[in-house]
């Protein structure tokens, strides 16, 4: 690991104009170059961009992929979505720990290797996956993990590793009108210039296009409100922070349809009168950055971006901002905080992003897929768009299908498609449950496979995870509940504490220590969290527990102890350190904790009784 080179840090700072708004971007680069943001570097940066040291500290500690200490030359993050689990990521972790002689979450003694789990990396169709210094390796096997460890132990730089290890496949399984569209950069813009911004907006309005991130807000309404809001400047933001576990359709769109994404943003700018746009790319997709920068450069050369686009009196350019690992940044006001160089904490609404977004100016923030659809509507017209879908959910939806299916990948279906149709197409058999819309969405069982993917029935940002009958659904719930506990930003009480309480509850159930009362408590705690939380994360974090409690209650009941009451305190467990210190492991050194039929604590057999 090289020593901190302050000339290089100065270069990074200058590249970002020592602009405090670019603090997250600066720290992402520092983390990449030095493997961490240690105190001396943080203080240097704080002075250089003129913000309090505590702010730099706060930002570094907020994001998963920034660290307050240096983590090493090789920083490995193993994806820990439930689909990675099902594909054996725990075995991969065991091999890496063994072969690298490192323990998860703790730097290796020589300080060169760091290994940990991370939330879903958006590679569920080809898991188990990991990121090493931001670069993806998919379809891991224990053998491949061993080879990776060998190269790391030999201190071989990543560029010398086999290039095909870093290949990411894009499996387009079923193409609808979007995936079948041929890329013709600029055609949608030409069509827009012919009709003018007002008619374009009316056309988008007539198409009924709704936000593809999952919330389903009317795109045209958002744009109109933003356009009409007074401000010093208007901004366009593309939300490419695809963090919902099990979603990877934006990865495909950014890889194959980057032109359509950028063109959609440009159309948005044309309608609302913006000159600056941002694409906020989740850290896990950082490996797409060079590709996206190249597409932007080509579009500038083709006069599709920059000054006087296609010769018209219209200037617009796009900057790519990298995330640094935070699911909550997918919430649009948190995303904007991050764009401004802050911790990604959701803002208080009202006011809304449309009128008070980036720098508190009118801003449209839309999902990657929404911008692609805007481009296609501008190119092909609203009628073309309205030809598919349902009355309240026109058009198609890209679904990221993963889990127990023969053919994982991207499927494009008109809204209104039934879950069963998708299951048949992707080769799912003996299906026990489907998680539609990711952990924050809905878990359904075969009784409901006739339900439709649409805003009016099963709303989804694109995640579609399938579980067959061999799976333990409570392990799924546990994975999701841990996910929320790890991703809560900590701003509001109900989510900060409540996600931890739910995590404790499911762990207690899985360990066989829970009683019937636990289940009633979960429902009550969940209702407080859902009603009082500040943003969608807290409002949905109990869904995995509540959905399965409602639909699969016997699964829970089979794990309960038969008693009405179980003490929350594990006396025997608490005595473990004392036994270790006193080197005693005889029967009398164990105090079991059992209850008699009246609920009184009695010692377990062989402990007190034998004394």
């Amino acid at each position, binding site marked *: 690991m090289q020593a901190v080179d302050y000339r290089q840090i100065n270069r990074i700072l200058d590249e970002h104009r020592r602009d405090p708004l670019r603090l997250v971007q600066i720290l992402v680069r520092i983390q990449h170059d030095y493997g961490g943001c240690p*105190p001396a570097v943080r*203080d240097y940066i704080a002075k250089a961009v003129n913000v*309090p*040291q*505590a*702010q730099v*500290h*706060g930002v*570094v*500690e*907020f994001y998963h992929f920034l660290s307050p200490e240096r983590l090493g030359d090789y920083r490995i993050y193993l994806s820990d979505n439930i689909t990675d689990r099902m594909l054996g990521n725990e075995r991969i972790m065991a091999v890496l720990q063994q072969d690298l002689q490192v323990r998860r979450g703790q730097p290796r003694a020589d300080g060169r290797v760091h290994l940990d789990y991370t939330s879903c990396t958006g590679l569920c169709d080809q898991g188990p996956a990991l990121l090493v210094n931001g670069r993806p390796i998919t379809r891991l096997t224990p053998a491949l993990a061993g080879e990776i460890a060998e190269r790391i132990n030999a201190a071989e730089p990543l560029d010398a590793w086999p290039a095909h290890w870093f290949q990411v496949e894009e499996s387009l399984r079923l193409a609808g009108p979007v995936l079948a569209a041929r890329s013709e950069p600029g055609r949608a813009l030409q069509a827009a210039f012919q009709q003018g911004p007002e008619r374009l907006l009316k056309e988008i309005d007539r198409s009924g296009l709704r936000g593809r991130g999952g919330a389903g807000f009317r795109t045209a309404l958002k744009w109109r409100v933003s356009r009409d809001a007074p401000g010093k400047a208007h901004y366009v933001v593309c939300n490419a922070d695809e963090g919902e576990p099990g979603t990877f359709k934006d990865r495909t769109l950014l890889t194959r349809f980057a032109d359509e994404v950028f063109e959609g943003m440009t159309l948005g700018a044309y309608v609302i009168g913006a000159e600056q746009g941002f694409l906020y790319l989740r850290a896990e997709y950082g490996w797409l950055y060079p590709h996206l920068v190249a597409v932007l450069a080509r579009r500038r050369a083709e006069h599709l971006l920059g000054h006087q686009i296609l010769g018209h009196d219209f200037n617009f350019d796009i900057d790519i901002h990298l995330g640094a690992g*935070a699911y909550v940044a997918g919430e649009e006001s948190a995303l904007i905080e991050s764009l401004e160089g802050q*911790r990604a904490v959701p803002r*208080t609404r*009202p006011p809304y992003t449309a009128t008070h977004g980036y720098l508190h100016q009118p801003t449209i923030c839309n999902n990657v897929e929404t911008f692609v659809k805007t481009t296609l509507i501008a190119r092909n017209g609203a009628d073309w768009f309205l030809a598919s879908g349902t009355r309240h959910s026109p058009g198609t939806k890209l679904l990221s299908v993963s889990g127990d299916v023969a053919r994982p990948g991207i499927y494009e279906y008109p809204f209104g498609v039934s879950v069963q149709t998708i299951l048949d197409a992707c080769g799912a058999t003996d299906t026990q449950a489907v998680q539609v819309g990711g952990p924050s969405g809905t878990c359904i069982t075969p009784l409901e496979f006739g339900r439709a993917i649409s805003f009016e029935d099963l709303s989804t940002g694109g995640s579609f995870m399938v579980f067959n009958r061999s799976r333990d659904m409570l392990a799924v719930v546990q994975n999701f509940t841990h996910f929320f*506990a*790890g*991703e*809560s*930003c*900590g*701003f*509001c*009480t*109900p989510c*900060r*504490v*409540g*996600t*931890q*309480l739910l995590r*404790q509850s499911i762990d207690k159930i899985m360990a066989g220590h829970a009683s019937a009362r636990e289940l009633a408590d979960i429902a*009550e*705690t969940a*209702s*407080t969290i859902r*009603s*009082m*939380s*500040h943003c969608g994360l807290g409002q949905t974090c109990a869904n995995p527990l509540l959905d399965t409690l409602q639909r699969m209650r016997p699964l829970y009941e089979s794990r309960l102890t038969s008693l009405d009451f179980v003490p*929350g305190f594990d006396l025997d467990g608490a005595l473990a350190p004392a036994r270790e210190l006193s080197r005693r492991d005889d029967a009398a050194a164990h105090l079991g904790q059992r209850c008699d039929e009246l609920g009184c604590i009695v010692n377990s057999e062989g402990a007190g009784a034998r004394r």
Partner: protein
Amino acid sequence: MNGNDFTFVLDGENIRFEPGQTIMEAATQAGIYIPHLCYHADYRPRGSCKLCTVKINGRFGSACTMPVQPGMQIDNDTDELTAMRRRLVQMLFVEGNHYCPHCEKSGNCQLQAVAYHVGMTDSHYPHFYPLRQLDASHPDMLLDRDRCIACELCVRASLESDGKAVFGLAGRGSRTRVVVNSESGLLGDSDFSADDVAARICPTGALIPKREAYLRPIGARQYDLRDIAHNAPPDPPSPEQMP
């Protein structure tokens, strides 16, 4: 209703408000108490403790951040909300390490007072027993993170009233914590002073002056005598006012 009708309904009572006021401001002006911890009249509302959650036309929202609209129907003092607020306070208690019986702030503590107000008699949830750093490096002030509820009032007061930015929040989720703006991270190495407004703003005992702990005995303190709902807004007492 015409454009000049600046009234709304709070627990069935018609309340007048001034345009631009939040629900909290209008209620306070009308002498109605809505439980809160992170709200303070002198600072921009943050809306994070969520104790002031009310039902606005049937939907939950924070009273401290939501602007009043004419005709709004708001529920505040209901059994449903009190039960949920009790759970929130219990969450705050188990999340940190709060030792009321021997805490110097007992009786002057808003967390404790709100807990009494919402009828909390036990902690309900298992305690987290977190390990948090105590900072006694400052000659006149103690920063005991065990009692911190991450309300950010010290952060706001230092920034907005004292012009200093002594504090900030770091970490995330349940590891969110107050950090100090000095190279060592210690309060004693910052430019914090016991005369700062931020030194008297903490609603709990997390940021507390040294050598004043028991000048007034427990039992004769602000919230020992009257429920927090009937106390004057808790202005930070100036040092001269301290008994």
